[in-house]
């Protein structure tokens, strides 16, 4: 057996980044070698575009008028960003059940690297998800009517929401059993529906309308509709959250990260099952 010196303490920033990247890279190799993982993650949103864009859409009124599919796509983008958390929950819970988490924790790996690596890999995955959906949107008649900067800002807001949801997913994945993790989409799904994703909250019963107005997803959807120049954004007579959508589309995800990132890291470090 060859003699190897013990590695230096693993807490330095350099090792945290290096270890995170090593872990993220192995995760990314999974997608490269098993592209069916990507297909399954985008199949659902693409199906929704078809379902709502062409089946239910004709019955839905766009507030202020305009093309429904152009109104729909920002909602679909945001919904995909939020539902992606279900995949994060499943992978994190599976890693725990398989003992991968224990192996990392028994090694001199930088303590938060497995979590950061997970979030890096999932961010790359969500860029892919979003790219596929954008192409899908362009095919069904959606387009951005503003310049490059507002468009990039909209994409940035969508990815910011995804980043926040990844940390929700990393936390939940450490808390719930593997069986429960398979059902993580169940609470997320209504969360993405009771919002302005598919219809305007004004058309909902009052209680649901208020929830939809304040839903963090609605903020991102309204803000991206504004930034893409898509229809359905009415500022006159709109609720306070609708009028301040851009601000909330930044504040909500930042608040979610501020709560769930420390929770996830704390949970990981103090895990004592």
């Amino acid at each position, binding site marked *: 057996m060859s003699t190897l010196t013990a*590695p230096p303490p693993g807490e330095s920033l350099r090792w945290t980044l290096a270890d995170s990247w090593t872990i993220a890279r192995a995760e990314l190799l999974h997608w490269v*070698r098993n592209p069916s993982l990507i297909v399954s993650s985008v199949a659902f949103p693409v199906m929704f575009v078809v379902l709502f864009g062409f089946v239910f859409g004709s019955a839905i009124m766009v507030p202020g008028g305009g093309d429904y599919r152009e109104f729909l796509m920002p909602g679909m983008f945001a919904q995909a960003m939020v539902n992606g958390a279900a995949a994060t929950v499943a992978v994190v819970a599976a890693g725990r059940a398989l003992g991968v988490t224990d192996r990392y924790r*028994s090694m001199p790996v930088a303590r938060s690297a497995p979590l950061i690596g997970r979030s890096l890999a999932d961010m790359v995955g969500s860029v892919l998800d979003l790219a596929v959906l954008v192409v899908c949107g362009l095919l069904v008649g959606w387009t951005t009517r503003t310049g490059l900067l507002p468009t990039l800002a909209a994409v940035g807001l969508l990815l910011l929401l995804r980043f926040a949801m990844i940390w929700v997913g990393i936390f939940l994945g450490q808390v719930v059993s593997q069986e429960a993790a398979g059902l993580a989409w169940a609470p997320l799904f209504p969360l993405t529906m009771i919002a302005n994703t598919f219809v305007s909250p004004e058309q909902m019963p009052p209680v649901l309308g208020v929830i939809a107005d304040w839903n963090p997803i609605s903020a991102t959807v309204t803000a991206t509709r504004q930034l893409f120049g898509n229809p359905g954004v009415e500022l006159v007579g709109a609720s306070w959250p609708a009028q301040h959508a851009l601000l909330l589309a930044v504040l909500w995800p930042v608040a979610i990260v501020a709560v769930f990132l420390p929770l996830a890291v704390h949970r990981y470090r103090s895990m004592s099952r």
Partner: protein
Amino acid sequence: MTLGHHSVIADGLGKRFGATQALQGFDLAVPEGTVCGLLGPNGAGKTTAVRVLATLLRPDAGRAEVAGHDVAREPAQVRRNIGLTGQQPMVDEILTGRENLVHWGRLFHLSARAAARRADELLEQFGLTDAAHRRAKHYSGGMRRRLDIASSLVLAPRVYFLDEPTTGLDPRNRGEVWHALRNLVAGGTTVLMTTQYLDEADQLADRIVVIDGGRTVAEGTPTQLKNDIGGDRIDVTLRAETDLPAAAALLARGTGAEPEIDAPVRRISAAVRDRVAALTEVVRALDAAGIEVEDIGVRRPTLDEVFLHLTGHPAETRTEEAA
């Protein structure tokens, strides 16, 4: 070394999960460079003990030192000196065997070149060189287990924890894993291995610690443990089942002990004090009585019998055929 000659010490460890007291007053001392088998049935506390020693769980009571470092106060130093292989084979199926090892090497902060070199060494050591570039998905159970073990040994740890290394493997794959472990031990690594298979502990361990209900109930070499429950046993297998009562009476007289009769396999078994005298006496008596014997022999008690004696209940029996 600060510990003198012990690489693993546990002193009165306690750990409770809700209403379950998983460990209570668990003691252990593993001399450096030896293999200790931690033997006990399901739920005895084996895995909890390993998880505490590998810094994955904080004990509620007691203290433990691994490779000279306190597990609660200096977990980072402990982690740099241990390897852990859990119960489920933990290989990345999408990656090749070599990629798996390089991945772990990088996480142990080896350079890309050093990680690749170490991966090749380990593949060679564990007989996986031919399969190095195949995805682990296509490996057999024994190969996965060996790859799993190899990936815990990237840094040549001073103390290696193995939780039930061959659970769920068929006899051939178990043999492969045992062979790999014997080579490892010959290299001087201190090993703490949990198992519920008595023959596994007997095959690999220098010393055995029997755990039941979260505490140590016995400790010693396999030979000592067997001696503890009283000497050897004589087994007689008869040709005809009808001879069983007569032969049992002869055995009782020849050994002075109450024989146990296993009728379906026509076998009678009894404890003996003087191996040779008892064997001679029983053979002579059976011959004189004209009882036809298919097989006769004197043997050491099995660890199953030791376990039953120590804990009052039988050990978990294996479902598949014992090797």
